[in-house]
């Protein structure tokens, strides 16, 4: 747990970068500091490992005031990915990653094993071990920066715009991999970004800051999007706040309609009857194992049965239970029939999503 109690930072020259900040970062969570450029994010982050010392108040890691530990000791226990990565240009990737374990006096075998493990963990090809930073792509360098910060397995990580310097596609991949990794390692992480979408995606909690290090709101992404505390926060969340909220809600939150379902062997009469009770002119065909096989229009059945005897149509749009409501909404908007099929694991049929069903959540 990291706690800020009335933390203030005034730089010589009079800039107040942080003003009376109160904040708690719970164990195992990612807290994102987000706000416009120059609002004090980096300053707040760097007060955790004493790269900057507070001019007032108290910063504590696991209850211990950081000012009571010598900076090198303190910093070796806190992983730090700085804005701009800062890999050592004269050292190989393996040597870069080994920096803190070496300082901590690990033996060579242990270091080697750890480096190999980390290179794999962050998704780098094995061949980069003995290369130098300038021989790597921007995305690869970012991964090395993360691996180096993780090297001695610190419980706390500070990450300052770690994915800012790469193109959007690589950034998305790095974000996804980071989240997967975090779900395994469960570190306590302070993550800085100026990008609200990144904050919503990465954060268990988000601290929105304005100039001068003023904390405007501290809440989970859902709470923030549902109830912004003030105009500053609402503005910062942007015009598509509602859609961003939908992106956080899984499709499984919304009840799906059972829909007109028939077995593959059903005759035409049964298909008509089922369609009628659902006031539709088509049926969905689901087999004994619960797998959706396709759908058929009644007028195309030509009075024949069983239903499986005619060529079934493929579903235009399917939505997986893990997808977000935003994805589901998108599917419904582009669907000609205003209906999307919801599938679970192994393509099991779970029901139909309609605009009406979604509208409950959209309000």
């Amino acid at each position, binding site marked *: 747990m990291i706690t800020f109690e009335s933390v203030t930072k005034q730089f010589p020259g009079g800039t107040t970068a942080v003003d009376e900040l109160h904040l708690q970062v719970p164990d195992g969570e990612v807290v994102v500091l987000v706000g416009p450029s120059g609002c004090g994010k980096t300053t707040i982050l760097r007060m955790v490992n004493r*790269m900057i010392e507070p001019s007032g108040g108290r910063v504590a890691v696991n209850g211990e005031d950081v000012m009571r530990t010598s900076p090198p000791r303190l910093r070796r226990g806190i992983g730090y990915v700085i804005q701009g990565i800062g890999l050592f240009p004269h050292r190989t990737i393996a040597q870069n990653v080994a920096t803190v374990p070496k300082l901590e006096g690990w033996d060579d075998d242990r270091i080697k094993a750890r480096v190999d493990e980390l290179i794999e963990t962050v998704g780098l090809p094995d061949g980069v071990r003995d290369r130098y930073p300038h021989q790597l792509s921007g995305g690869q360098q970012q991964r090395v920066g993360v691996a180096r910060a993780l090297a001695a397995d610190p419980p706390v990580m500070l990450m300052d715009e770690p994915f800012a310097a790469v193109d959007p596609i690589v950034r998305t991949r790095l974000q996804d991999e980071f989240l997967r990794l975090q779900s395994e390692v469960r570190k306590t992480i302070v993550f800085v970004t100026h990008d609200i979408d990144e904050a919503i995606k990465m954060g268990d909690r988000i601290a929105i800051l304005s100039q001068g290090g003023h904390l405007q709101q501290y809440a989970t992404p859902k709470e923030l999007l549902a109830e912004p505390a003030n105009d500053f926060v609402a503005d910062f969340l942007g015009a598509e706040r509602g859609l961003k909220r939908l992106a956080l809600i899984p499709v499984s939150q919304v009840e799906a309609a059972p829909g007109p379902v028939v077995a593959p062997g059903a005759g035409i009469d049964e298909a008509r009857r089922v369609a009628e009770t659902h006031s539709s002119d088509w049926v969905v065909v689901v087999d004994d194992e619960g797998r959706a096989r396709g759908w058929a229009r009644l007028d195309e059945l030509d009075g024949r049965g069983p239903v499986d005897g005619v060529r079934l149509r493929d579903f235009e749009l399917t939505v997986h239970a893990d997808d977000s409501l935003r994805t589901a909404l998108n599917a419904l908007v582009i669907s000609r029939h205003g209906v999307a099929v919801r599938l679970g694991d192994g393509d099991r049929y779970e029901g139909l999503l309609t605009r009406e069903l979604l509208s409950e959540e959209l309000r």
Partner: protein
Amino acid sequence: MELVAQLLDWFTAPAQWTGSSGIPVRVLEHVLYTVAATGVAVVVGLPIGLAVGHTGRGGTVAVNTTNVGRAIPSFGIIVLFFFIFGIDPVPAVIMLVALALPPIVTNTYVGVRSVAPAVTDSAAGMGLTGWQVLREVEIPAAMPLIMAGIRTSAVQVVATATLAAYIGLGGLGRYIFDGLSQQVLNQVVGGAILVALLALATELALGRVQRLVVPRGLQARSRQAALDAKLT
């Protein structure tokens, strides 16, 4: 043509290669002055450059002060030293040190300062102490520039150490000044050629040293940079 023949005579005369005024001894004396002056300049200049580079304080003062060495009229000073101290190698070497200091101090300072702030920052952020940042990061990363400074100094010292002979000391300058006063042209040119060769040898030898002390990752990059520079 005649000069070439005379030069050949001068270089091949057996007497030229033995005794206290033979080429081997003169080269040795010259090398000694150079090593002494460059050595002292490294021992004095490197810590100054590292200190001001690492702390980021006093850089301008250090660079400007040592740059005075550049402005010293070597010839005038050495004659002045002769009138004060007589025939004494120490003042001559001091003069050469003053000449060798500026490139070493300036390059070391600039080398350390030009390590990307993100690099030293991440080093400190991972828990390296100030000394460790200097030793593990700043010095290795600044090594190409530090070595370039030492090479520049050493070559300048080789050329200027010739003046030592003007005040009665040894070294390759003897051939030049004695030849001038006795109007023996081939000896003057022969001496000059030897100085040039020694300067070249110094440059090459230090180039080797540079390859040994500059970390491999930076060598590949500086070679690449040199290639890029040629292409554009």
